[in-house]
């Protein structure tokens, strides 16, 4: 028993120590004051992101490269815990870090499809950056040299995921990648959903199998995200993609935490304006605009008038989604219990911070209205203590 306990103490302590290296609000504010992506990168080079930015020309850094390097930093942070974790936690950690592999597959699909309007990092450069890591879900070399959907499937190491992905590819499209027709776009969307479902379902199953306080906390961390994703996907499917209630229900995960299928059905069948009221009595109503807004929102939104803009309103939903998760992360650290939940919570904090930095970088790069940045950021820049 001595070793598992030792491992838990070590990983929990490291998580708490590493938490102290996250950027402060002042750091984020300084990033926002920069004028170019290179300046943002230079400033990040003086923080805990220095390790991942080492040996790269920061002055001339492009947004896509910086974004990828920041995502790699989350992976690197996670990998650093492997030495401390016992065998079971190591498996869980590897599973947790598969989110990076999933993002890589999606990014590669986007690159090959060139669906995104903005600049994207070339596969060669990606391969160069991730060459130090051994990804568990995907063979990075095969993935990044793939030129067809069949090649992409062949790069996936996990048999079950490979089978699920191949099911999502219609027969005629197997060997094509550069076709941009509607059927292909639909396939891309379906593949993205399969990847997400596979990841979150496996992660929640692994968290649900844990016992004690560790299990409870892990279920809360992953389960809250699962619930929010289920609701968010239905919300978006109904609101923006014109899906029928029944069709939107086919998108959801197998995993359920606090929101059961009955409530999800109710939410799917509710008209868009009644979506949030349907969730009354759950902790998620406020995320979708129902119930009292979280205090931080009220502080930072700059009043209801500025939220009238539809785009910003949707961004605010996404921000509240993550802030809801942030409150669960806070509870994990407050509890002080030892276990993998501390590592998971820390990695979530890193992930959210990277999201915020990316949002700031985009604001700098594309000249967005910086006064409204607080409507997008997960961590408010306005008030509060670090």
């Amino acid at each position, binding site marked *: 028993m001595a070793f598992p306990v030792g491992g838990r103490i070590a990983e929990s302590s490291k998580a708490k120590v590493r938490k102290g290296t996250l950027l402060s609000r002042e750091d984020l504010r300084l990033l926002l004051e920069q004028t170019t992506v290179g300046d943002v990168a230079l400033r990040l080079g003086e923080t805990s992101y220095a390790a991942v930015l080492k040996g790269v020309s920061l002055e001339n850094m492009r947004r896509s490269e910086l974004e990828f390097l920041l995502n790699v930093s989350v992976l690197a942070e996670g990998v650093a815990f492997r030495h401390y974790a016992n065998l079971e936690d190591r498996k869980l950690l590897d599973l947790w870090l598969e989110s990076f592999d999933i993002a890589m597959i999606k990014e590669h699909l986007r690159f090959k499809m060139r669906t995104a309007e903005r600049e994207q990092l070339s596969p060669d450069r990606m391969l160069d950056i991730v060459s130090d890591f051994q990804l568990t879900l995907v063979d990075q070399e095969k993935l990044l*040299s793939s030129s067809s959907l069949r*090649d992409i499937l*062949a790069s996936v190491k996990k048999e079950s995921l490979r089978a699920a992905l191949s099911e999502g590819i219609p027969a005629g499209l197997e060997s094509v990648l550069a076709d941009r027709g509607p059927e292909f776009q639909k396939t891309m969307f379906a593949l993205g959903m399969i990847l997400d479902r596979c990841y979150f379902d496996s992660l929640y199953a692994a968290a649900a199998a844990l016992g004690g306080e560790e299990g409870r906390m892990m279920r809360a961390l992953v389960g809250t995200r699962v619930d929010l994703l289920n609701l968010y996907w239905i919300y978006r499917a109904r609101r923006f993609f014109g899906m029928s209630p*029944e*069709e939107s*229900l*086919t*998108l959801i995960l197998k995993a359920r935490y606090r929101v059961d*299928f009955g409530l999800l059905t109710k939410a799917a069948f509710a008209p868009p304006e009644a979506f949030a009221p349907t969730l009354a009595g759950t902790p998620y109503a406020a995320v979708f605009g129902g119930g009292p807004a979280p205090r931080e929102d009220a502080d930072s939104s700059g009043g209801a008038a500025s939220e009238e803009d539809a785009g910003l309103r949707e961004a605010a939903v996404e921000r509240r989604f993550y802030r809801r998760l942030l409150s669960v992360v806070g509870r994990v650290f407050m509890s002080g219990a030892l276990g993998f939940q501390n590592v998971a919570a820390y990695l979530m904090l890193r992930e959210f911070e990277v999201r915020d930095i990316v949002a700031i970088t985009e604001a700098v790069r594309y000249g967005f209205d910086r006064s409204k940045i607080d409507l997008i950021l997960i961590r408010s820049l306005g008030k509060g203590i670090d």
Partner: protein
Amino acid sequence: MSFVGPAEEIENVALALLGMGIFEPMPLEVMMEGRPLNSRFQTSRGNAYDALLERLNRLLRESGLPIPERPFADRLPSLSLQELEERVAALESTVDAWNKELSGLREEREKWRAMLAFGDAIRGTGRSLSDFSRAFSVRTAIGTLSNENWRRLRETGLAAPILVVPLIEETDRVTAVVFYEREYHEDMNKIFSAVHMRLVPVRPEEYGRYDSADAVRYQLEAVESEIERCRAMPWRYLSDNRAEIDKLCAAVYAKQRVASLCRFRGELAGMTALTGWIPWDSYNDVRVVTAQKAPHALLNAESGSALERAGNELPTLLRNLPLIRRFQEIVRLYSLPSYSELDPTFVVAVSFCFFFGFMFGDVGHGIALILGTRFLEKKKIMGGAIASVMRIAGLFSVLFGFLYGSVFGDESLIHPLWLSPMRDVNSILPVSIGVGIVFLSLGIAFRIYNAACKREWGEVLFSPEGVTGLLFYWLAVLQAAAAAGALPGAALGTGVFAVIMGVLFLLMLCGNGIAGFFFHGETVDEGGVVHVFSVFHAMLNFISNTASFVRLAAFALNHAGLCGAVLMLGDMVENAPGGRLYHAFIMVIGHLVIVALEGMIVFIQTLRLEYYEFFGKFYRGGGRPFAPVLWEK
């Protein structure tokens, strides 16, 4: 090494380097940094042959053929990437035609199986499929989907106005029929698409054609035999053309390996530049090969030390004798030595075996450890170098067992060749401390050597872990030994001793200043106060590090004590009813615990002595392994 020359010649050199297995490519930009032409070289890191090789391998795999052996080819095939791509594409298109036919046949089989199952289900209710096709208000759709999607469809069925019924449930797939209202057809199609349900292309109006189960079964069998025929076709085709395909595989593989070695190359005006690391002693071989294979190429070599001084991180290649090589893993566990650092593997190998045997000396337990390691190795619980290290450590346990005269803790079976830890405590303790003194001195000597290699003369002469520190330590040891009566007559007079020690101590305290004065340019990492504390800390370390080696004797005693306890427990139960059985049980369990638990503790203690007491004196590590590109992928 840098090679610059015509692309074809450089590729020939690359092939030769692959065969030699001594070249680790490095990005051209690193070597060219700050030099003219740097920005004019076009660099590309991709390997176009990766995808081609993968396509070829997949073709063979999917056709059930083994991937051919790849013996080293001393000549690079003349085919270009485009030509190779065309040949692979031609093969793919031939095989794909059969695969397409096979896929169609499989769908056909799915249809017949589904209709047979659906027909059986309907006939079970006393009706026929033709009756069913006349139901106008309800539509049916039959299809197959994965278990996961089946779960999703069933769940959606709870919220949608549909009825889903499974027809065939297999381990990974389900064939199901869905009943829904005619008006719901459009929505239903979206749901089918979302759950990736592959629909059987039979309209309800055609159901009558599937009424006869025998006719359906006959069709199903015909399709299955056709599938068998079609499945064998790619295999047959590729087998018939095996010689040509093997040649194609060899060509693609050779090109892929060469491209992999040249992945950091640069191109400029038809010339190719390639840079990378090689072991220095291979330089002459590389020169000869380059002269033969690339007569028009330029070759440039720079010494590792110069490159390291310029701030480059050089890879480390450890070279040790085969048996000693096993202990590289122990060094690597801590950290690989950096390029110019002394490789401590030999000393680690010798001392590790000695320390382990000293603390765990027992003939029986040593043999048990060897057998246990072999067992864990077979079960794949322990493997590689660590298992070898454990086996060698077990061998030294046996050796020390003979020296201690101990077999499973019994000291009456063989006569000790040296001493018995339990009976000769007064002898074994000084020996363990003596070993510590020698070992620590070696650690300091290594530090002196490393510092001398880096020309850090202040560190060599005045550091507490330099020459002055070593003299201070030896003098203190000599005086202590003389005072304890171990070296009668060796003691210095108190005054002389105090003066020498005082001078040495002052030299260490003022070492930074003196070094700065005599060896201009040597930088000092720490301030004065910190340095004073670090000198005091080093003095304390001399004491604590030396005392740490008492554990050698302590664990030898501990081993004898534990064995004594097990033997005593066995004797206590021997006279009880069934005593022999209990005795045997206690012996087996007791010795197993000793081998497993104490063996592990001694292993950790040995590592501690190596890493903390020895490595702590001189070792920095942080090296990265030399990773040449090899012919075998």
